[in-house]
């Protein structure tokens, strides 16, 4: 079972443009989410998803223009801190963007270990769960 999301996407645009799109408050608000954002380590960001009223807050952790941008991501008042990491790499004809969203990786011993634990009994219970999930997916 995965505990994080990894996405790769190639854009045929120069790295500076992609960097601007992911780090500039106005640009972020245009394509992503209404943002209160500055690419400065320690900045307390606020993203507002207006249709649902969801507010994401977090702190900028890393800024290495134009390659790396990392911030924490906390939805509403859930106190569940996840981390979003944007990585850009210049490639011929454009930019490769790698996005990682670490879910509950911050809980060192979490759900994931629980899921993966081979402790007797869990196996059977997970088989049940799996059936439930696949049934659900169909």
């Amino acid at each position, binding site marked *: 079972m995965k505990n994080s999301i990894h996405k790769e*996407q190639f854009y045929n645009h120069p790295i500076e443009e992609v960097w601007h799109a992911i780090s500039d408050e106005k640009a972020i608000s245009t394509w992503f989410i209404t943002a209160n954002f500055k690419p400065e380590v320690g900045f307390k960001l606020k993203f507002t998803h207006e249709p649902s009223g969801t507010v994401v807050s977090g702190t900028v952790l890393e800024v290495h223009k134009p390659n790396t941008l990392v911030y924490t991501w906390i939805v509403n008042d859930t106190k569940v801190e996840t981390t979003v990491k944007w990585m850009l790499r210049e490639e011929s004809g454009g930019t490769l963007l790698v996005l990682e969203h670490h879910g509950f990786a911050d809980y060192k011993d979490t*759900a994931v270990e629980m899921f993966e634990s081979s402790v007797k009994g869990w196996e059977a219970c997970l088989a049940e769960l799996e059936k439930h999930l696949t049934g659900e997916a169909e």
Partner: protein
Amino acid sequence: MNRANYSIFKAIADPTRREIIHLLTTGSALTINEITNQFSASRQAITKHIKLLSAAGLIYIEQRGRQRYCHSDVRPLKQVHDWVAGYEQFWTGKLKALGQYLDSENRQKS
């Protein structure tokens, strides 16, 4: 991304709570006293854990005569799966939107 989805993460983030679920999933239903006997924590602490697990829907309590029995229910763990699935979709959509944004920016310049 609603709030309810997160109570499950909170519930399973604690090792004692995971052991309680494990205990109930591998064996039969137990009373709070029987559960407490298996841990070094106080009855009060275990009761608190059970309340949290119950709020997350991982445990339900059955009244049998004078005794209350705790049963486990792992179905809410599906939410952990859904969290990942939900964000997968969210980011796929957003990265596509970023592409459209970059393309439209380019058009404006040329």
